[in-house]
């Protein structure tokens, strides 16, 4: 990231601003007002082709859900392998750079699969999930996970690992595991709710 008017700590300042923004949004009335504003959008989602197919054709919904779960398994696997290597638990005989880069490729396509199938599934049950608080927790966790992965983890781990403080890489790995396990857990929680 080029040095900008924010000075040499541009990324840190933007990260701090994003954290404050996310916390303010999560714990103030702003979240409720956005929730009310997006209701027509969720009503519209149910009227789309995806929504009609998802609601009326159970087999199609189940098939897409199966792909969604496979995507989740791939994403979970890539996170466990990548972070496990950073923490020194798995594949310690293979260079960390190799594991991190390959796990990222799997992670990226798994995330694309999850987003594509997730949109379809959300259309099928739009008004159900709209009233489920846990769906919104999942979206917050997913948003945090995507921002964390592409704005914090990836730029940092692109550098030579020897130049990075090992405690920082370990903290990044632990945080990444926490976020993606939360995304998976809240996803399952949606299945148990309503």
């Amino acid at each position: 990231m080029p040095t900008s008017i924010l000075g040499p700590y541009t990324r840190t300042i933007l990260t701090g601003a994003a954290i404050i923004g996310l916390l303010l949004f999560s714990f103030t009335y702003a979240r409720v007002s956005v929730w009310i504003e997006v209701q027509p959008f969720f009503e519209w989602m149910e009227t789309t082709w995806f929504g009609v197919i998802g609601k009326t054709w159970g087999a199609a919904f189940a098939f897409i859900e199966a792909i969604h779960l496979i995507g989740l398994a791939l994403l979970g696997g890539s996170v466990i392998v990548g972070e496990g290597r950073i923490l020194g638990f798995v594949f310690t005989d293979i260079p960390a750079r190799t594991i991190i880069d390959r796990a990222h490729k799997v992670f990226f396509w798994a995330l694309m699969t999850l987003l594509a199938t997730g949109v379809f599934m959300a259309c099928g049950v739009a008004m159900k999930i709209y009233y489920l608080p846990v769906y919104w927790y999942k979206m917050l966790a997913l948003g945090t996970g995507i921002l964390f992965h592409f704005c914090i983890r990836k730029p940092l781990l692109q550098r030579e690992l020897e130049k990075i403080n090992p405690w920082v890489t370990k903290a990044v790995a632990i945080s990444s595991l926490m976020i993606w396990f939360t995304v998976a857990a809240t996803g399952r929680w949606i299945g148990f709710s309503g």
Partner: protein
Amino acid sequence: MNEENQNDAQIKDEQTSAILATSTIIIFFAVYWFFQIQSVRELLELAYG
């Protein structure tokens, strides 16, 4: 030399932002699970004494 300094400054910035983000996440999880466990313990106490 100048390019190397700039590179070092970027690494420092990326590490500081990572410390900020990870500490927020870890503290948030610690506080969340503390209150979750506390709440379950209170429920169990109410149920079984």
